[in-house]
């Protein structure tokens, strides 16, 4: 028989050298792999819940022989193939893979038309520009592209 004291007394800062030593043995890159597997499973689980599905429904949708494979996917231990992730994200309408090539904001291109009056420009470009205009047979609308 043994007794434990009040949880409030002992629970706050329980620590174990044994556990701490083992945790220190896990390399950061290994922990990152574990975290990713757990998060992928969590995301798939959330995707199932959002559709009101159980494991068997996903197994059916993917024509799997057994829902036990889905249980394995959800366990946080599975090393997924890209093909499997693509199938799952398509069926559940979730995003598991980010394949964007760049993180930069997409370029917005705006085209608009202005009339350029040669007389309003500086002396330096007035003559050459007027010559181009004359050769073209008079003033024409000019397209200016501004890229933000």
């Amino acid at each position, binding site marked *: *028989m*043994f*007794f*434990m004291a*009040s*949880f*409030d007394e002992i*629970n706050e800062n329980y620590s*174990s050298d*044994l*556990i701490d030593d*083992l*945790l220190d*043995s*896990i390399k950061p890159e*290994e*922990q990152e792999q*574990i*975290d990713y597997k*757990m*998060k992928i*499973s*969590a995301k798939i*689980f959330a995707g199932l819940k959002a559709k009101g599905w159980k494991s068997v429904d996903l197994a059916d949708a993917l024509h799997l022989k057994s829902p036990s494979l889905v*249980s*394995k996917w*959800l*366990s*946080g*231990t*599975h090393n997924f193939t890209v093909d499997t992730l693509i199938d799952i994200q398509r069926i559940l309408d979730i995003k598991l893979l980010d394949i964007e090539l760049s993180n930069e904001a997409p370029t917005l291109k705006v085209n608009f038309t202005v009339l350029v009056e040669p007389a309003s420009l500086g002396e330096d470009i007035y003559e050459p520009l007027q010559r181009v205009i004359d050769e073209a047979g008079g003033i024409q609308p000019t397209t200016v592209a501004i890229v933000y």
Partner: protein
Amino acid sequence: MDHFIADHSKDCFQDLLNILGRLKSMGNEVGALEPYFKLDEGLEWDDLVCAFYDIPDKHLRLYCIRISENIVIVGNGGPKNVRTWQEDPKLSREVNEIMHYSKIIRTKLEDGSLRISEDGLKFEGDLMLTR
């Protein structure tokens, strides 16, 4: 948990690291989601006794009481090389023990002598376990 580590640190070191890594991930990142466990490992339908999902082909079982997504009581376990834990004396002992503690905890939660804190992260109150 300490017993579990001490008992298997030599023969199942990598498995232990993986289990601890997943426990850390649950604690820091994702919570103790249901599919991370094999549920209904205990003999009573509502005893909350489950097994931490073992790595495929490894079969190192760690039995737990999953109170919620935020509270899991980790017990002991061992390699499971039989179809059911009842066929292995060591696993039977561990599961029976954790079922025993589950009973005490659930009883205390019901009578109010043990409570889950407002933030849902820990127990409050007196917990006396009798073996």
